[in-house]
């Protein structure tokens, strides 16, 4: 048994060595965030950010490997060195920048308010005293917590919040607009609708997160992002996944 394990490790080491030219970067991704990153019918992790990184890797010379990781604790795993980077629709915020480094933005995002079709709510201000759900530790959830008089409720996955909104346990859900569109326009198109996009002072951007000081990976990512944008690949991907 031990012999076998040692043999396997040696083989792996050799393989890695031979593939050194193409650096492998392991990304943690919470694949519950369609259409940015999610698990498709054949159990593959797919989505906008997956395609984006694959293209970026081709341009900058790295191979992305995706590791499906629960959102809650995803940042702790990064500082614990369990993966090289996070590609999980992470909005760049001042608090997060204190703890980790971010790549250049790769996507502009807004927070969308989703309600039941019958609901008359047009903004968070209309939902005083009501329960509004978001995914734990997301900018959407922080927006709910920041809204006066609204009862914030945090979920492990945005899908669970959508289900509770669908059955009426919640009055609304706040999340990133591409995700909101995916749920309100496709999955729950008969029952839910997007009420509004929350207005903010500054635009919100997704970035890939790396451990503080990991310049090697950060440089590769930025090189790839720049190339994907310059070559017009970004436009194709948006068309494919977001439909715009």
């Amino acid at each position, binding site marked *: 048994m031990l012999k076998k394990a040692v043999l396997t490790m040696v083989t792996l080491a050799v393989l890695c060595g031979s593939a050194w030219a193409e650096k492998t970067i392991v990304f943690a991704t919470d694949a519950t965030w369609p259409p940015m990153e999610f698990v498709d019918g054949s159990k593959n992790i797919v989505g906008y950010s997956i395609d984006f990184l694959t293209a970026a890797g081709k341009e900058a010379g790295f191979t992305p490997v995706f590791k499906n990781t629960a959102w*809650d604790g995803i940042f702790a795993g990064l500082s614990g060195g369990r993966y090289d980077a996070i590609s999980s629709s992470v909005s760049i915020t001042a608090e997060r920048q204190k703890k980790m480094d971010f790549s250049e933005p790769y996507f502009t995002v807004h927070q969308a308010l989703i309600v039941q079709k019958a609901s008359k709510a047009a903004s968070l201000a209309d939902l005083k005293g009501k329960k509004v759900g978001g995914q734990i530790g997301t900018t959407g959830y922080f927006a709910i917590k920041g809204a006066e008089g609204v009862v914030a409720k*945090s979920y492990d996955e945005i899908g669970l919040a959508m289900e509770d909104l669908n059955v009426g346990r919640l009055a609304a859900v706040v999340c990133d607009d591409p995700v909101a569109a995916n749920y309100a326009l496709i999955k729950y198109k008969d029952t839910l609708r997007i009420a509004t996009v929350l207005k903010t002072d500054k635009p919100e951007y997704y970035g890939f997160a790396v451990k503080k000081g990991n310049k090697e990976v950060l440089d590769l990512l930025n090189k790839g992002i720049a190339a994907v944008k310059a070559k017009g690949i970004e436009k194709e991907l948006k068309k494919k996944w977001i439909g715009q």
Partner: protein
Amino acid sequence: MAESESEKIEIGEGAAIPSPEDKGLVSAWWIALLGTVALLIALPIKDPSTYGKVLTFIPDGILVTFEVTILSISLALVIGLLTGLGRISKNRYINLAASLYVEVVRGIPLLVQLFYIYFALGRFVRVPDIVAAVIAMAFCYGAYMGEVFRAGIKSIDFGQSEAALSQGFNQAQTMRYVILPQAWRTILPPVGNEFIALLKDTSLVSILAVADILRRGREYASESFNYFETYTMIALVYLLITLILSKLISNMEHRLSYYEKR
């Protein structure tokens, strides 16, 4: 389910309940309690911005945890009593229904049941999340309680039933006035254990977005990134609660054995 089960009720998971006679366990209990209290006081003083913040974040979560625990155990006791009676019933349909319930519940992980009942209920009736969580917890624990009740009732000498029946008590009165008051003493230690186990298992309802201790802690950690500090405090809070409860239960158990002392 073998009928050859011994009369002794197995103590399942849950904190070991210290017997007042057992000096070793009692002192272990004291050490744990003092250590927990000391850490809960010292850590926030040492670092108010992390450990201290956690403590200000979770008090309403503690209330929710208690609320879910107490409601669940109450409902589970009722379900358990009915199930236990059903399992010893001579009516084969009642017996079958009760046994089927126990088999089904015992075969499904609690977490899966929680998800299932929470979202299945949501499809048919509009109940608040805490109610759904309580129903799910009680549905699961009711089956275990049923086994505890069954064993407790069966542990009472049949002569007690016969004496009551011969005086003219019907089956229900016999159960109520003679069997259950005695069975309760046998039942209490495992029920106490289940109570503590249930309290710990309520941490699972945090997955259903019920804002209990664990979820409040996770919300704090996800904002502050202070994972280590948060879970240290959460573990200590749970430990403090279960330590106090196990002591209360052991005292209650001691008092209930009044009629066995010479």
